C-alpha cells in the first residue's frame, strides 16, 4: 500500500516538473534590444526621490568659517558695504593721450 502511495507521489512530482519546465521554455527570453531599451529609459521614469533622499543644503561659507589668521582680511573684503565705506575717493584722471595706443 505504502509502495503504491510512493509511486503515486513520484508520478505526480514528475508531472509537475515536466509541466514547469515546459512553461519556462515558452516564456520569452529578454533580448539584447530589450535590455538596451531598458537602460535607455529616460530618467524621469525613475522613482522620484523620497524625502529621506533630499540633500542637506550646504551652508554658505561665512567669515567665521575661515582661518582665524585671515579673519580681518576676509571680514572686510567680503563685505561690499564695508569696502564702499572705506574706499578712497575716485580721482578722475583727465585723458591726455591722443589717438590709438
Amino acid at each position, binding site marked *: 500500500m505504502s509502495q503504491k502511495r510512493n509511486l503515486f507521489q513520484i508520478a505526480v512530482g514528475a508531472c509537475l516538473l515536466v509541466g514547469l519546465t515546459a512553461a519556462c521554455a515558452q516564456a520569452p527570453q529578454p533580448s539584447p534590444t530589450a535590455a538596451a531599451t531598458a537602460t535607455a529609459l529616460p530618467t524621469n521614469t525613475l522613482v522620484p526621490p523620497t524625502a529621506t533622499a533630499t540633500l542637506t543644503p550646504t551652508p554658505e*561659507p561665512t567669515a567665521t568659517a575661515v582661518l582665524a589668521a*585671515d*579673519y580681518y*582680511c*576676509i571680514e572686510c573684503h567680503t563685505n*561690499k558695504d564695508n569696502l564702499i565705506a572705506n574706499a578712497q575717493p*575716485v580721482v578722475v584722471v583727465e585723458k591726455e593721450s*591722443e589717438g590709438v595706443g
Partner: protein
Amino acid sequence: MAPLEPWEKVLVSADYVEKPHGDSACTDCHAGAQSAEKDAAHAGLVTSPSTDAQTYCANCHKDTVTTFGSSLHATQAGYWTAINTRSTPENHPALETMFGNHCSSCHTTCGDCHVSQPSSVGGGFLSGHTFEKTPPMTRTCTACHGSRVGAEYLGSHEDIPGDVHFREERFNCVSCHAGTDLHAAAADENAHRYAGEQNPKCENCHAVGSSTDPVMQHSLHKDKLACQVCHSVEYTSCDNCHVSISDKTGNPMFKTDATYLTFFIGLNPRQDENRPYEYVLLRHVPAAPDSYSFYGENLLPNFASGPTWVYTTPHNIQRNTPQNGKCENCHANPALFLTADKVAESELEANQSVIVPEPPKAVGK
C-alpha cells in the same frame, strides 16, 4: 570695457576660501597684518604677489613659472628687439626711462591674467579673487591686445566682419594660442613674436596643400604666400607715435597722428625656414625717428635699420576675400602691393626690404 568700481576691484567672493588657493592665508601671499584698522592691516601690503612668481607661484607651478619668466609676456623683450634695431647702446639709459614710463605697464604677471584684469585697463578682480585657469578673453587678452588684434578678431571695424574663427566657431584666444605657448620661453635671443617656429600654424588644423586638399591654389601658392595674403581683409595701421610726460599732470601720455585701415602685400622681411613665404601682409607701425625725443636727442640714430611696414598676421581671417575670388584680383592688381609710391619718402630707406619692386603680372602674361 567699463572700469570696475573701487570696491568691486577688491571684493573677495564669499566662497573664495572653498576654492583652490583659498586654503592659504591671505597674509601668506599679500603680507600686511591682521588688524581691524585699514591702514594697519595694509602696512607692507604686497598687492601683486605674482610679480615675484618664483617666490609665490613656483612651489606648485614650477615648470610654468620657469618658462614664463623668459617669455615675451613677462619680459617684453620683443619691444627691446625693435628698439635696439633702431638705436645704439649709449642711448639705453634714456630709452629705459622712456620704457618704464610708457611701455612697462603692459608687463604681465600670473595674476594679471589669472586673478585680475591687467593694470593697463584699471585692474580689479576678474571674479572675486578666484583663480581662473583660462582667463576670460575680453577682460584679459583683448583688454591689452585690443586696438588691433581685438578689434579685428571681434569685428569692431564698420563693414568688416570679424574673424571667421570667432564668427562661426566662437573660438577664444586660447583655442589657437594654448596656455603652454603663452607661457613659453622666448624662441631665441632675438626675441620677437615671429621668431622661431610658427605656433600656432594654420596647417595644424587645415590640411592645406596636402594630397586631399581640393583647393588647387593652395598647392600653387604654398610657401610663396602667407595664408593671410589670401584670407585676411583690411586691418589697422598707425603713424607717428610720440611719447612724453604731461606738463599739466605729470602723467605719461602719447599722441599718434593717424590710425587707418590698410591692406598691403609686401616682401617678407623675416624669410627663413619657419616662414619661407615670399609675400606677406605688412602693417605700418607708429614708429618715427623722433618718437622718443622727449627723452633725448636722436635716440634712434639707426631708424632706417628696420622697416616701418612690418610683418603682420591680421586676426580677421575670412574664407572668401576680395583678393582670392579670381586670379586677376591679385595678379593684375598693383593696388594691393606695397610699392615705393605708397611709402612716405622719409621712410623709403627703412622699407627697402619689404617694398615690392614689381607686382605680379596678370596670369598668362
